[in-house]
């Protein structure tokens, strides 16, 4: 049996600002993970990652992160990715106030 593919999103940090961004279905980079394209097929996910890797003048270090569908769009499954959607917990800086 082929191993189950867990859904993913493509994420990276923006070259200029350095903040976390996610790849949307129409090929934009969004600071709001809920707007990201949820990739539930492995071959398609690899293609989207290749697209991201071809934009070194826009983003740094793109990778596939686990995600699951939520009411408002894709949601993180791991706490590290959750922090990336919010910002640090010791100050109200970052996306928790910027989005």
């Amino acid at each position, binding site marked *: 049996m082929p191993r189950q593919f867990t859904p993913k999103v493509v994420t990276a940090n923006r070259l*200029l600002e350095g903040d976390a961004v996610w790849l949307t279905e129409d090929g934009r980079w969004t600071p709001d993970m809920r707007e990201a394209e949820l990739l539930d097929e492995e071959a398609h996910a690899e293609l989207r990652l290749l697209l991201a890797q071809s934009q070194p003048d826009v983003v740094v270090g793109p990778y596939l992160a686990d995600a699951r569908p939520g009411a408002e769009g894709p949601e993180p499954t791991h706490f590290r990715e959750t922090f990336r959607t919010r910002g640090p917990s*010791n100050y109200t800086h970052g996306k928790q106030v910027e989005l």
Partner: protein
Amino acid sequence: MYHYNDFDRAFVQERVDQFRAQVERRIDGSLTEDEFKPLRLMNGLYLQLHAYMLRVAIPYGTLSSDQMRTLALLAEKWDRGYGHFTTRQNIQYNWPALKDVPDMLQALADVGMHAIQTSGNTIRNVTADHFAGAAADEVADPRPVAELLRQWSTDHPEFQFLPRKFKIAVTGAAHDRAVIQAHDIGIQIVENAHGEIGYKLLVGGGLGRTPMIGKVIEEFVAQEDLLPYCEAIVAAYNLMGRRDNKYKARIKITVFENGLDTFRDAVLAQFERTKAAFTGVDVKLFEEIRAQFAPPAWRNAPTDAYDAAYRADPVFRSWADTNLAAHRAEGYAIVSVSIKKPGQTPGDATAEQMRVLADLARDFGHDELRISHEQNVILPHVHKSDLPKLHAKLREHGLATANIGLVSDIIACPGMDYCALATARSIPVAQQIALRFEELKLEHDVGPLKIKISGCINACGHHHVGHIGILGLDRAGVENYQVTLGGSGDETASIGERAGPGFSADEIVPAIERLVLGYLDLRAGPEETFLQAYRRLGPAPFKAVLYPEQEAKRERADAA
């Protein structure tokens, strides 16, 4: 204090200009990230979870008030109004935009500071006892040696691509406040039977995933042999250090795998060559540097104002008892300013606090400041008669917390709130422990206790050498905190032992509370510190309070 000479200035300026051009070429797309990354790391620029991070070196932790004001300016103008002082006597800015970094580096260069060699497999910022030049118990000021090492190692052509990063720390006192035993090279200034000053050298200490205590490679190295000997150590390591496995590449593994004697033989073989190459310029240079660290002109004044405040004001007295240390000059004190008010992020200072500290250093402290590896700010030379005024100012700005060396004076690395390598958060754990003990009003009864927290195995928060160490891990997608006990970073250095299974984020603060309250019951008397009690009793009774269910189970089994 050391001031840049023309050579230093020209070199740092050239690097700023170079980096400005590199950033431009990265932004316009002519440099790829693969090409740019090593260049930005050479200039202290990391990419973390939410933004870039700029790490600025504070050589041997010493700053003038102008330099401190510039750190405040960077925080305010290009960051979010604060900076984070680290265990390696650096300051980190968590939010710079790429395009602004060259301007930040320029502002630093203008006051003789930089971010060079704060990253990469080079010799990093040389650290020293934060009480250097002030401590009553010091044989000699360690900073001239640290500055000599800084000049020798900066841009040293042979040592830009070592097998791994390389860290050196220097202490001038037998009581080690610089954690020299956890460094690649540790240096202790000593005096021999003939009254000559020399250096005891240690190698192969380090924390990270394989913590090790440094070993003495030479008991006494004379002044004229110091640089040649250090160069020989690094050269031997450069040849013998493993480049096949990043986790085995630090000098501690080289020394461990080859044995100290074999390693020393290799060093001595190199020493023949290096000794011949150094023609004495280093000794001349050292004398020039040392002249720049001449102590300020001490003031001779009565200390009545201090004595009166000490008698009359219990808040002042409590602060004086915990935050002052003995100074070598009559009538003076060393002031440790805690930037760890319970609930605050350990090591963070706002731009305003930095300016207040700069003003205080100018007005009352011979214009000097220090950053300690324990993430506090030191005013090394304050005349006692000025202390009541100084204390009042500190209070106005939330800087008068009387907790140096106590439970809430916690070291914490940035952890998963910022760091891309983290496996769990460390800052919130530190905040909660400090707040809880403030509530309990117990910390002065508990006495000296060092809690140190890292957000992953790399151990930037020194957890291995905490009396209580906390290591944040990712256990199946949940934050989990492992406790180590009995570590120490002073001259009696030891690596803490794992107490048992880890705790969840909800359980860790109550667990630490049980441990500390348990210690109060276990200690022989108020004079016996946590570490002493642990060393006397061993881990068993501490584990029993940490894991009461297991203890209850064991008791039931014993009774049956």
